[in-house]
């Protein structure tokens, strides 16, 4: 005899879980292989669950779980709070790169001019005129600050 799905399964499951059998359902179950198997399975699993729930092994302490969740939440808050700063840093790096690239040819000429006019044989070397160029000062400052922003950015991401 093969078991086939039965329309009483839901009612039998509920009765097997609660132990509340109506005489009709009980009679059906006793004559239906599917429902008899279902009753066996439900009751067996209930017994197994009861045994497993009652095992003496202590549960893991919930305190570290809570603590880890709090730490993760603080880290998330921190990331959210610092994300604006990170964007400013990224923008600074991008502007620096753009400015740097735009002025590369001019800058190169300035640096070259500065070095060619530098007289190393003189006991007191005069500062080349190009060194005083506001453009050179601005570009070099931006490159230094941009480098710092990049360094800060990568350090923050590593952390």
């Amino acid at each position, binding site marked *: 005899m093969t078991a086939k*799905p039965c329309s009483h399964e839901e009612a039998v499951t509920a009765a*097997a*879980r609660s132990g509340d*059998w109506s005489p009709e359902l*009980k009679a059906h179950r006793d004559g239906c292989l599917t429902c008899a198997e279902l009753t*066996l399975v439900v*009751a*067996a699993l*209930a017994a197994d669950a009861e045994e497993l729930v009652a095992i003496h092994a202590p549960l893991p302490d919930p305190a570290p779980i*809570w603590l880890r969740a709090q730490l993760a939440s603080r880290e998330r808050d921190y990331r959210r709070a610092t994300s604006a700063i990170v964007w400013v840093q990224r923008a600074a790096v991008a502007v620096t790169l753009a400015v740097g690239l735009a002025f590369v040819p001019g800058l190169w000429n300035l640096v070259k001019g500065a070095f060619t006019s530098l007289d190393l044989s003189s006991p007191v070397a005069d500062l080349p005129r190009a060194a005083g160029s506001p453009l050179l000062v601005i570009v070099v400052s931006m490159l230094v600050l941009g480098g710092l922003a990049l360094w800060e950015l990568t350090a923050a991401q590593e952390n």
Partner: protein
Amino acid sequence: MIPMALTLPRTLTTDLAGRAVTMDEAAFRHLYDRTARPLRAYLMRSCGDLALADDLLQEAYLRMLRSGFEGEDDDHRKNYLYRIATNLLRDHFRRKRPESDEVPERDESPGHDEAVHLRSDVGGAMAELAPRDRQMLWLAYVEGASHQEIAKALGLRSASIRSMLFRARQRLAKQLQARGLRPELEVS
């Protein structure tokens, strides 16, 4: 002999439902106290290893907290927790059998049989089933999950749960009968 028609462990409580929406530590502990043992029982019976079950249990609660899931009530939180736990189990079984996307036919990890509490015949019978069958049967008949909830937890189509559950039940009944437990037992 199996004590028939037992009252199932009740993991659902209604007293959390009336609490504040945001879960504070006290609410978390309350939820943990109510659900951790039944959830560990589910994990243990599914993975067959107490230490692993404890690891997965902690990870499940941690993920729930980290997700910021508040849930409408305790029932909702419990369902969410079981879904996370089921995903963790699936990840565990997939890691063990990376060559297959399918859930393995049965768990044969070293120490499986020692770790699973085979004190009961039911434990032995369940150990013979595929992990997915074990999870499905447990969710349906211990936790009283609906077909839709089972489908959601296991990542399956809701429409196929009925027949899958039927076949899993037949396999378990066969294993139980092989251990001398018969459906003809007087049950009430």
